[in-house]
């Protein structure tokens, strides 16, 4: 079975995939047991599967593993932990910016990239930046507030 060398959360890993076109999402979840990245649509329409690939927010449900090879991938698990959350994650917790939370991993990852590119966005810019990601519970207000809170925090470099 072909194998691929990836860098996931600052760690070099080798994964096997019978299909070079297997999306990265399933490799993360099933080969590497990184369950924080979620399947939502498999179509690049909802953002639940968002990860950073070489720092850029990317739909992992659309990225074939062969094209992820050799690249640097950051998943939600590669950011903070419940005990040591990043500034963005701490802001999500402080704002209680979740209901079911199924979209939250993708939101946090996209928000992290957004603040990396624009550390002090306006609320409108934050909304535009989050546009690829869907929330069904209607927590949009809280998520935007969390992004603005993270931007204002002293440790805003996520």
């Amino acid at each position, binding site marked *: 079975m072909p194998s691929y060398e990836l860098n996931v959360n600052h760690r070099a890993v080798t994964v096997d995939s019978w299909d070079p076109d297997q999306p990265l999402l399933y490799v993360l979840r099933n080969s590497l047991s990184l*369950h924080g990245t979620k399947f939502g649509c498999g179509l690049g329409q*909802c953002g639940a599967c968002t990860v950073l690939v070489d720092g850029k927010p990317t739909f992992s449900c659309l990225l074939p593993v062969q094209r992820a090879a050799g690249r640097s991938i950051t998943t939600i698990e590669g950011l903070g932990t419940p005990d040591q959350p990043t500034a963005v994650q701490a802001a999500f917790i402080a704002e209680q910016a*979740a209901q079911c*939370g199924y*979209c939250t991993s993708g939101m946090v990852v996209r928000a992290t990239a957004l603040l990396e590119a624009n550390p002090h966005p306006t609320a409108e810019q934050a909304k535009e930046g989050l546009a690829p990601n869907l929330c069904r519970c209607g927590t949009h207000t809280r998520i935007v507030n969390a992004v603005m809170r993270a931007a204002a925090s002293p440790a805003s470099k996520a």
Partner: protein
Amino acid sequence: MTRRLSRRNFLISGGALVVSFRLPSAFAQGPGFTAPAYDLDSFLAIRPDGSVTLSTSHVDCGTGILTAYRQIAAEELGIPVERFSMVEGDTAATPNHGGTGGSTGVPRGGADIRHAAATARQALLQLAATRLNCDTAELTIDKGEVRPAAGGKGVTVASLIGGRQFNLKVDSKVALKSPSTYTVVGKPILRSDVPAKSTGRHVYVQDHAVPGMLHGRVLRPPTIGAKLLSVDESSIKAIPGVRVVRIESFLGVVAPDEWAAIRAARELKAAWSDAAAAAPFATADLASAMGSAPGTEEQTILDQGDTTAALATASKKVEAAYYWPFQSHASLSPCCAIADVKDSGTTIWSSTQDTYGLRGLVAKQLGTPPAKVRVVYLDGSGSYGSNGAYDAAADAVLLSRAVGKPVRLQWMRHDEHGWDPKGPAQLLQVAGGLDKDGNLIAFESKVTGAPGPAWVETLLGPGSAGVLSDPPRAGGPPTTQNLETPYALPNMRVSSRALAATPIRISNLRAPGKIGNTFASEGLIDELAFAAGMDPVAFRRRGLKDPRALAVIDRAAAMIGWQRRPAHSAQESKEASGALKGQGFAYIRYKQAETYVAMAMNVAVDRATGKIAVRHIACAHDCGLIINPDGLRNQVEGNILQTLSRTLHEEVTFAENRVTSTDWASYPILRFPEAPVVEVALIDHTEVSAWGAGEAASAPVAAALANAVFDATGVRLRTAPFTAARLKAAFA
């Protein structure tokens, strides 16, 4: 949603005409209305270390209800809230306190927990009185210790009962703590699940794994009711490890590798019959066809005065037909379940809102006693009612039984959007009359819709496999809750008519029926205010005496900066872009008898593009006693934004016998750039018990928005969703 004793099933059960439109007072009163004969130990266990485990069949679903339960129990028991943990929805570990739904989590489930905790408190006081040789009246419980209120040495609750059982029944008449002394209830305690959810560590049913588990996918027919004729397994021979499962017209695949299962389901060639006998239908026909489609006789639910005569003699009469479309739960994750079917017993992990209900269905599917089926709840993505969770569990059971191994079954996006049972369409025909002074003298409303949910007998997989052969039950008439007008008047008639058939399966979707009903009833009130030449808020205020109703109305109007004027100021006010500005208002008392909600909106409408920009939504909300203000606020905000999405965008579309809105492009929902400023005022009434908040603020959203668009443009929107295409057509 709730299938035991939920209000809406209570109302439709028996299939008879339900005259009691206003709820029995016991239901409306909150705590005390259940008659708990439950074993206290089934709810609550105090551990030797002083921690407390609460058990309930109610489940969180991301609503934060478990945090509210911990607060309620901590308050009554005098034990710090951090020491409480929850066990939810495991038929092997939690007693059956009913399913979750209908906004009953706090008024029903919370009341049960409050009584259980209060019963435990009394028991602890008695145990301590014996130990300390004093009277229970002298004792108090604080920080997990029972001690004399006047001071002195106490004993910990752990030393009194830790690790042992109470062996008591929950006392429905037990003395309850006075809300005026509350220190935990009413506080914005943070939810314990948010740190794990924000760091990707929360375990959803989608993340659960059991040893030896295979991954499964299903293949649904191309049209509803089509039969499977043949399967060409050679079409997937290049995909490793796949096994095809065919049971009559049920078709699925399993494989050790999830991606293999996905590709096999995508590439497996199968031949299906043409659609079964069902008549072709299309979305475009539906609104006009519903009025004359065959169904039951119209049932009068409420009849006061002589509405027909009053409408005939009214100085001004307004008649209108409103339409609310079929909508999907559109859960962010397609449903998922893991089933392990063994001769010795079956275990299912599911995000169902009703583990006991699912257990019964699966037992029937397998032909085994319910005791041989265990259903364990794990969070999924939000479900907002009975989404595809039951069907996914039944699919997993079929696959696991066929291959003799545990199977994790997840639907794909097109399965979820295409096949989840839908919130039903409603046709709402309304009329109102004014006297010569502009007073409201008559109101008539009629809902026509699919018969009430009877979807449980029509689970997809078992139906295709020929396992469940019971014919679907006849459902009750569509709900008329919030289809009456709350404003004082002499003549009102409210009626309901069930269609003989529904083109697609239906189930409860958040605030079932109430959004469409309020869209029509509060839309018509706005139309009547305009006919009367009156300010819509003033028109509403005039018909209300209840101070709690007036309080929410005044608060919402103040928050938005309501500009008092006769309804409709079309085209007088513009944004810099030229978009037309408008304000809209709606008020409801949920289910006529519960939470009070008033909602005001500011919008801007671009006539050229037909696009509505909602700028600001103000909501004043009074559900009585507030358990957790931040959890409540989160629910209210979610109600508003989700229903704004449903109102602006959402409609299940059909072509012949299939759903064509099968992804987020064909069934779009609200995206961030459209999210308005949402401002919520919570009005706390500690002296009255808590009603639910999981649905109420959904109900007035569509009406308030339509009324605001009318104010901006003079165009009355009576068909949802308010898409840009629909508005452009209306402006043309």
